[in-house]
Every structure is written in structure tokens, then in C-alpha cells.
């Protein structure tokens, strides 16, 4: 509210104390440990750094993590929209139960999700068996990683888009209809553009989450170097080999990309806000 200068007109007590404690805790728990990562990486020369990142195994792992995370986010983007549409616009048996269960991937520990998905999609599993019968092998292949990444990304698109669609006034659609729009036009020209900022935010969140995912993936992945070994697992392996600098270098790459995604999300949200609000 107060433009340029810091205006301390607040009569409430405790600003100095609480702010001091906040910054101290933030530094001890978050900032200093994160700084240690960059400190460790800075011990490497540029050649060493790119040697680590450019090695076949690292590159494969990064490609696998980012590529499959992107693909899973695309699936969640599409299926998330379908789920939101069904939950908000239609009524069907057990709708409320399905609505509540969408949050499960948030709440279920990733290790539990990992063993559950593996058991489900293993060759003798409930879904793995029929899939194997038609020649599709899911568990212990990159396809399994993809499945796990879809699982953990489901709530992001659904929960960001759902409230926006629910709040979209029915009059907007009526206006479009009375102007001669077909249902296809109403959806593609009016509803989807209105939801787009939320959809993109959900997409980016699902992507960011899937890139870094570890627990639910490693059980089902198979973890073959260059084939089904994700980047977070490679970090763990390098750590167990006491190659700390290697682990740190891979982590830095992943972290920087994650921050870029967060930055993009913020831009999307600011962009949609400026369009919706006065200047």
C-alpha cells in the first residue's frame, strides 16, 4: 500500500523479534544447507562440472527424468482436465468419493505408492498380468517410471483448475451461446482460455514434482543405468560411492531447472492477474 518508503505505523508488537527468529530459522534449516550444495559444486572446475554432467550415464538419467516428467505432465494436463470437467460439471455415483480421493497422492507416503504401483503393474499384478498378456511390460521399464510420475502428478492439475472452473459464471457460456457459438466454440474459445492460466500452473507444478520424484519411482523403475535410472537415483548412487561432488553437480542442474519452472509459474500467474485486474 505504501509506495516507496518503509512506513512503520503499525502499533502491533514483536516485529523485530519475530522477523529475527524467522530469518534465523530460515537460514539454519533452508538457506545454509542449500548454500552448502553450491559451495560443494564450486569446488569443481568448469571442465570437471561439464565432465560430470556430460557423461553418458548422467545425461541419460537427466533426459529420462525430464523427458518422462514432461510426458507425465502432459498426460496429467489432459486427464486432469477430463477429471475436473467430470467432477465439476456432471453428477455421477460416488462423485464426492472420487473428488476426495484425488488428493491421495499428496497424502500417501511415496514409498507406499512405490511398492503399491509395483505390485499392481508387476507381471503377476492385477493390471500387470492382463497388460503382459497383450505384450506390454510396465514394471521395471521406463513405462513404469512414467506410470509412477502420472500418479504423483494427478492432484496438481485437478486441484488448481477445479476451483476456477467451479467459479466460472454460467452466464459467460450463455452469452457465447446467444451470440451464436456452437458448443465446440464455447469450450475452445471461452472456457479453455479462461482456465488456461490455471491449467498451465497445474502442468508446471506436476512437471516440477515429477522431475524430482524418488520414492514412488525407484521401486517400479528397474534402475538400469542408461535405461531406467532416474537422476535422483543417480545422486543417491554417487553419494553411496562417496562421489559427493558428482552428486552435487547433478543436484545443481536439477535445482536450477526447478527454479526456472517456479519462476515460469509465477510469470504465468502474474500475467493472468494483470489481465484480470485493473492496471
Amino acid at each position, binding site marked *: 500500500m505504501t509506495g516507496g518508503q518503509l512506513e512503520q505505523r503499525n502499533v502491533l508488537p514483536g516485529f523485530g523479534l519475530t522477523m529475527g527468529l524467522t530469518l534465523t530459522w530460515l537460514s539454519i534449516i533452508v538457506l545454509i544447507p542449500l548454500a552448502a550444495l553450491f559451495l560443494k559444486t564450486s569446488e569443481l572446475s568448469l571442465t570437471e562440472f561439464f565432465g560430470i554432467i556430460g557423461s553418458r550415464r548422467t545425461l541419460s538419467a537427466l533426459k529420462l527424468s525430464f523427458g518422462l516428467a514432461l510426458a507425465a505432465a502432459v498426460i496429467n494436463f489432459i486427464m486432469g482436465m477430463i477429471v475436473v470437467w467430470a467432477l465439476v460439471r456432471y453428477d455421477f455415483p460416488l462423485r464426492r468419493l472420487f473428488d476426495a480421493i484425488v488428493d491421495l497422492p499428496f497424502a500417501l507416503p511415496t514409498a507406499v505408492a512405490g511398492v503399491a504401483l509395483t505390485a499392481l503393474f508387476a507381471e503377476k499384478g492385477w493390471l500387470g498380468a492382463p497388460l503382459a498378456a497383450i505384450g506390454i511390460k510396465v514394471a521395471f521399464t521406463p513405462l513404469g517410471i512414467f506410470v509412477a510420475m502420472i500418479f504423483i502428478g494427478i492432484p496438481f492439475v485437478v486441484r488448481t483448475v477445479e476451483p476456477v472452473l467451479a467459479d466460472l*459464471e454460467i*452466464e*459467460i457460456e*450463455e*452469452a*457465447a*451461446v*446467444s*451470440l*451464436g*457459438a*456452437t458448443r465446440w*466454440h464455447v469450450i475452445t*474459445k*471461452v472456457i479453455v*482460455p*479462461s482456465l*488456461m492460466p490455471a491449467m498451465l500452473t497445474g502442468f508446471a507444478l506436476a512437471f516440477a514434482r515429477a522431475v524430482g520424484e524418488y520414492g514412488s519411482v525407484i521401486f517400479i523403475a528397474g534402475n538400469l543405468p542408461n535405461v531406467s535410472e532416474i537422476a535422483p537415483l543417480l545422486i543417491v548412487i554417487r553419494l553411496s560411492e562417496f562421489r559427493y561432488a558428482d552428486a552435487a553437480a547433478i543436484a545443481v542442474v536439477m535445482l536450477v531447472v526447478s527454479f526456472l519452472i517456479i519462476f515460469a509459474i509465477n510469470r504465468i500467474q502474474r500475467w493472468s492477474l494483470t*489481465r*484480470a*485486474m*485493473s*492496471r
Partner: protein
Amino acid sequence: MTIEARNIVKQFGAFRALDDVDLRVEGGELVALLGPSGSGKTTLLRIIAGLDWPDAGEVLFNGESALERGAGERNVGFVFQHYALFRHMSVFENVAFGLRVQPRRLRRSEADIRKRVNDLLDLVQIDWLANRYPGQLSGGQRQRVALARALAIEPRILLLDEPFGALDAKVRKELRRWLRSLHDDIHVTSLFVTHDQEEALEVADRIVVMDKGKIEQIGTPEDVYDNPATAFVHGFIGESIMLPVEVGGGQVRFGPKVLDLESGGAASGPSRLFVRRHDMVLGPAGNGTLEGAVKRVRAFGPILRADVALPGGDGETMIEVDAPRDRALKPGDIVGLKPRRYRIFAAQA
């Protein structure tokens, strides 16, 4: 383009929103649907637009049934109460929407669309806002965008739902004069819904007064004001004094007192006497149809307004009457009251 609604019935659960409504709007007219909330006026408007369907009855445009067509095929311009502008589109794109979604064989060229949109923005006097987004506009500006968007499809009929309802008092007044003059220019058959009698009286060629899903009266503003057809219209439009009276044997009684009034063909039984406040002439005691004691006097610009207690019926009935400023009225005075014009309606069951 004439609009006809015949025997329209619409039920929402146990609530009868429209009960056998008949209405005819002539080509080029500007008609107001006036009534309190819940009177069914918006439902009727939405049925004409094709946004709702009646349970029974017919809607005819120029004698042709409109119910067979969906909202998008009726060529009706609809202005929503809260405008329903597309927030992700600029003002220009909002207005262009109806032109861009036409089937390809009917769609105009891009150049034609630009010209038409610019002409419309000129017409509603917001050409300088073409590149803004709805979120950046004031209420009055949004209203103009909504109107331009509805007019873009060259509608045969223009329907407006509480077009000024969401605006503050000053803008509302300005905009309704402007709408009236705009209608005089473009002359498209128009129907608008309002709960504000002043708005209806000022803007409309004819007023349709509705209550509880029924049409109470259709007439020019003068008509409905001067010759209200029902007790509801008399009470709803203009300020009226209402007294519970009893009609019997050609006589009108207020409590025990027989009033020197014609029953005017009102049926025997409990009735209501309506008098416009300015038609109630205040005179000295003993010189009126009614008599009462002044309780309170207030100055209202050029007039005095007095609360007068009339003894009669069970206890007192308090009414508010006008008097010239130069009359020396004070609380406690006994005054006589004589209705210059009045109407008597049977009390509703």
C-alpha cells in the same frame, strides 16, 4: 420484428415462475418488464432468448415459432445483468466474438469484421478502449461493451436483463438516457427487465408490470401511472396512500364511517382505497372525506409532508400526505382530507 409470448407456463419445482403469460411486443418498440424480484420477469426474458424453455406455451418471432430454435439460432442480442464479458479477451475481441463464431459460409472477412466492430465501438462511444481488457473498465464502460457485443450480430431483437442494476446511481441515470436515444437511432425491437419503476417510466415506450408470475398490466408509462389496472400496480408504481375499506350497497366505509366516495363498480366486501399522495388534498377540519390528527410535520423542499393519524377500523391508521409549504401545520392539528382522484380495488383473498 414482433415478439409474441402465448400462454407461457414455467415451473421451478414447487414454484410457479410464470403462470399463463401472454405478451406481444411490436417491431421497433422499447418495452420494460417491471416487477419485484421473483415476479418472473427475468425468466420470461430468458425464455424469449432461448436460455430457458417453458413448460407450456409458445414464443413467436414475426409469427414464427422460436422454440424450435436454440439460443444461438434466434439472432437475439442478450445483455446480461453482470455483463458476462469474456475476461481473457480485449474489448475489441469481445465485440468481434459473435462475428468470428459464425459458420464459415456466413462469416465476414477479417476486414469487414474490423470495420463492423470499430463502427459499433464508435456507436457506444468507447472506441478508445478497444485494446483494454474487461477487468480494466468501469461498470458503465463494461455495460457499453456488453451492448456493443450484443449488437454485433445484428440481432432482430435486443434483450437486456437489469441493464443498469449493477451501476451506481449517477452513471445509471446518464446511461439510461443514452440507451433511450440509442434506441431511437437503431430502432431494434427491445425488451428490458427492471425492478426500478423510475427506470421503466423514463426509458420505455410501454411497460409490462408483472407480479408472482402473472402480468398485471401492459400500457404506456402514463397509462400504468394514471390508470393502474390492479391494486398491485397502484401500490408498486408511484407513491400511494392505501386505506383498508369496506364496500357494500354502493357505499364505501372506513371503519364505522361512511365515506363520500363512489365505489366505482368495486365488488362488495373488504376492499382497498388507493390515492396518490399528491391527489390527497389537505384542508381544514370538517371539510373533507376523512379526518385525522397531525402527528409530525417535515419540510421537503417546496412541500410539507405530514403524518396524519386516521381513527377508524381497529385503532389508528397512519398515512403520509403532502401539503403546500405555506400552510401552518403543527402536530395536534385536526385536518380534513379529500381524495381528488382515487381507485378502489377488492382486497386480495
